[in-house]
């Protein structure tokens, strides 16, 4: 007992049990429950039956092909942007970088809708321009390659960030030494920079792959109409045709997704671990190469790409939302705000969705902040040997695809909670708890980096002044990490508000979220309403990203995910 007593630690005795309890309920228990169901279902022989189903293997195949080609597209797009924007003297870098990062924060189902609005015979935009293909021709995006392309656009920022972080860490003097040794710019690029940036490429590719495997919004909107199922959408379909074996089946399917993700994450971790040489020499300042005559070409290519992957789809989305009905040509005489009126003032479901999403997001962001400030304090200041383990356990629910987590929470709460006897399945509380679990790492990261930057003596001075734990937290610690805490709240709010994957499985009548509402509107054929709702969501995303961008200077490095 004496060992656990206050050994010069600044934390109160209840902090460790508190953190352990939180981690247990948000990470260990749901994932453990998933594993138990998967294993027991395997033991009962249901798995063999499931694995004999050709549709399952078809879904595995489609998941792998879409994710693989999506990864390639992401590497080409993200890699190209990272190299050009980091190494060369391109003008308007900040703006281009910000615009390029936007797709990652836009919800996938909105991306999918906007691209649908841009292509195919019913595109309001193409019709307005007189470019629409004849009616009856197929929508080209309802295909494996369409899904892969959108995966690429959605996840290219992940490759961009990973590669850019590697490039920014390159030793500048290494480049200068190569220059003095007589190497031309091209030779420096080929012999020094590219080999050194390979780990960044590989790590980015691995995260992009994992993100593709877990994506739900894009294959749900593009794949289901064409009967193309990936593992996440197959799980969704299994729940739609619920029977006695569903729980066992989905837990095995989730396990497959989890295994694919873990393979990808392991590759990422391995690759980055080998990146030891990067600390040698002065780093942080990247050598900028001059493009001279090629500069305008590079700038045109970048701008055109942004135009194609961001501006056009969003314009198409706006156009669709202003068209009176799906397939009606858009012109000045047909423009109508009817769709906005409908979703904001008439439809009870969209209004409920707004209320639910905003309440859930605020609840998650603020509730998690309380938990993460205490957990972050424990991890950074606690001197506990469990701190690395706890830190890793908070990461797992976020690293795993949302669909896996949603399945875990369904399994956990399908039956009434023991002892209390209350069932939260089908209520908004199950979504809230799943959000807590899923976004714990998002909320924790800014707080932990702020704690790490905080000089411990600031708190020690408060201790000697006589301030106890709660007092120190309120007077010294929280005010000093406030900018990071604010960023954490905005980030969680942003992500939770746009989330579809978790709530797609957990919602029921009256608890739909914005993501679910968009998906359901599209599913029921109200494309213009879905578009209008998506436009509002995009406006909200951009506004909040700009707020974070403005705050970025006052935040610790690495807090704002799209800045390096």
């Amino acid at each position, binding site marked *: 007992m004496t060992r656990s007593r206050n050994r*010069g630690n600044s934390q109160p005795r209840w902090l460790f049990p508190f953190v352990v309890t939180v981690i247990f309920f948000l990470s260990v228990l749901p994932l453990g429950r998933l594993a138990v169901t998967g294993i027991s279902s395997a033991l009962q022989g249901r798995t063999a039956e499931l694995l004999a189903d050709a549709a399952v293997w078809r879904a595995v195949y489609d998941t792998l092909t879409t994710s693989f080609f999506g990864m390639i597209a992401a590497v080409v797009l993200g890699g190209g942007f990272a190299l050009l924007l980091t190494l060369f003297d391109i003008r308007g870098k900040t703006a281009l970088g910000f615009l390029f990062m936007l797709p990652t924060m836009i919800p996938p189902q909105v991306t999918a809708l906007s691209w649908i609005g841009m292509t195919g015979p019913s595109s309001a935009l193409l019709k307005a321009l007189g470019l629409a293909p004849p009616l009856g021709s197929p929508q080209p995006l309802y295909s494996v390659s369409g899904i892969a392309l959108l995966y690429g656009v959605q996840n290219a920022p992940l490759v961009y960030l990973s590669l850019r972080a590697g490039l920014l860490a390159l030793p500048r003097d290494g480049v200068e030494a190569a220059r003095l040794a007589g190497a031309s710019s091209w030779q420096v690029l080929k012999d020094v920079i590219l080999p050194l940036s390979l780990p960044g490429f590989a790590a980015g590719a691995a995260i992009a792959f994992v993100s593709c495997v877990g994506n739900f919004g894009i294959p749900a909107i593009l794949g289901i109409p064409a009967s193309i199922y990936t593992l996440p959408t197959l799980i969704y379909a299994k729940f739609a045709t619920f029977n006695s074996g569903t729980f066992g089946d989905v837990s095995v399917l989730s396990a497959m997704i989890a295994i694919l993700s873990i393979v990808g994450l392991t590759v990422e971790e391995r690759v980055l671990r080998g990146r030891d040489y990067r600390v040698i020499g002065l780093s942080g300042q990247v050598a900028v190469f001059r493009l001279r005559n090629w500069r305008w070409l590079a700038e045109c290519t970048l701008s055109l790409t942004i135009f194609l992957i961001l501006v056009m789809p969003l314009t198409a989305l706006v156009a669709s939302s202003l068209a009176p009905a799906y397939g009606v040509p858009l012109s000045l005489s047909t423009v109508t705000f009817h769709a906005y009126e409908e979703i904001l003032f008439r439809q009870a479901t969209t209004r409920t969705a707004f209320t639910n999403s905003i309440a859930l997001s605020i609840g998650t962001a603020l509730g998690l902040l309380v938990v993460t400030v205490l957990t972050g304090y424990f991890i950074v200041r606690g001197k506990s040997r469990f701190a690395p383990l706890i830190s890793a356990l908070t990461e797992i629910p976020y690293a795993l695809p949302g669909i896996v987590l949603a399945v875990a929470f369904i399994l956990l709460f399908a039956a009434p909670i023991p002892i209390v006897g209350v069932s939260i399945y089908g209520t908004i509380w199950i979504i809230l708890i799943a959000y807590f679990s899923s976004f714990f790492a998002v909320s924790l990261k800014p707080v932990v980096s702020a704690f790490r930057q905080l000089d411990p003596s600031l708190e020690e*001075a408060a*201790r000697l002044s*006589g301030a106890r734990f709660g*007092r120190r937290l309120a007077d010294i610690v929280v005010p000093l990490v406030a900018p990071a805490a604010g960023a954490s709240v905005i980030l969680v709010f942003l992500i939770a508000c746009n989330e579809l994957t978790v709530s797609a499985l957990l919602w029921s009548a009256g608890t739909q979220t914005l993501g679910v509402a968009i998906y359901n509107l599209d599913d029921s054929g109200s494309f213009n309403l879905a578009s209008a709702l998506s436009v509002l969501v995009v406006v909200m995303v951009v506004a909040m990203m700009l707020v974070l961008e403005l705050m970025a200077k006052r935040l610790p490095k690495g807090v704002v995910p799209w800045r390096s």
Partner: protein
Amino acid sequence: MAKLILNRLSKTFDTGGRPAVHDVSLTVREGGFLALLGPSGCGKTTVLRMIAGFEQPTDGSILLGERVLADANDMVPPESRNMAMVFQSYALWPHMSVADNVGYPLKVRGISGEKRQAKIREALAAVRLGAYAERRPADLSGGQRQRVALARCLVTEPDVVLLDEPLANLDRHLRQEMEETFREFHARSGATMIYVTHDQAEAMALATDVAVMSEGRLLQIATPEEIYARPEGRLVGGLVGLGAILSLPSPAGDMRVLDWQAMLAALAAGSEGPKADILVRPQDVEIAPEGAPATVRSVLFEGERYALRLALPDGQALRAFSRHPVKVGADVGVVIRSAWRL
């Protein structure tokens, strides 16, 4: 207030390795000013942090008068020790004004209103920062921040004030001024003060007692005069004051203060027999033709005098002062008026 007693204090960190502090016992009398002196990594900061309560000893105990502050089983947390500390980084809270920083210990103790304001004013006046009360720490210079940190120690009349290399980040001019402020502070408050430093001149100038540490152990504790005149062992001799340590045949008897006769005998004795370490201060070395032979290795003009580095015929180095310039490479005679066997 009462005296502070460290009783066989030891600290081993969980990371393993040799103990950071090993078997340190010392007593600081009430109102004393102790300097903990030693090279970096010698454990002096760990001792200070144990006194403050940020680290728990793995063995031994810390007492303030009759009250046990800490031992290996239990300890009083820093917030209930009534101590104050000036940190190397000052540890001022950037989100509070100077007055709020200084007044925070009072606020925590529930003292409010006019009484708090009066105490803050008094403390700021004592460090001559009365006009800066509403500024933010970021708007102050290094020396001013240091004085704010000191004022924060002043307000609550702590039993013990701890200073962790408080002058390390200041320039030389500011250091002298701050040394003066510390002395004033000590005289005014009457608090027991413990001052960690690696600078022996600082330790000698400020403290009433100096404790020399090395590799986690306490080597010697004495008044500055005592420790300068009678250092114990080679490490202390080398650390405190200027001087050269000669390795010479052990002079007869247990005499420790050696005069010129004894030194002459030792220098002439050749290299046979057991050796002793003998500390020679430069001011005790005279350049005189009748002395023992030595060669001038370097000459440094210091303004009021020349500082010489000499070599004895067997190559051992000696330091001396001279009022007159001497040529490098010249052969001179040295008379050692007094030396101390370590």
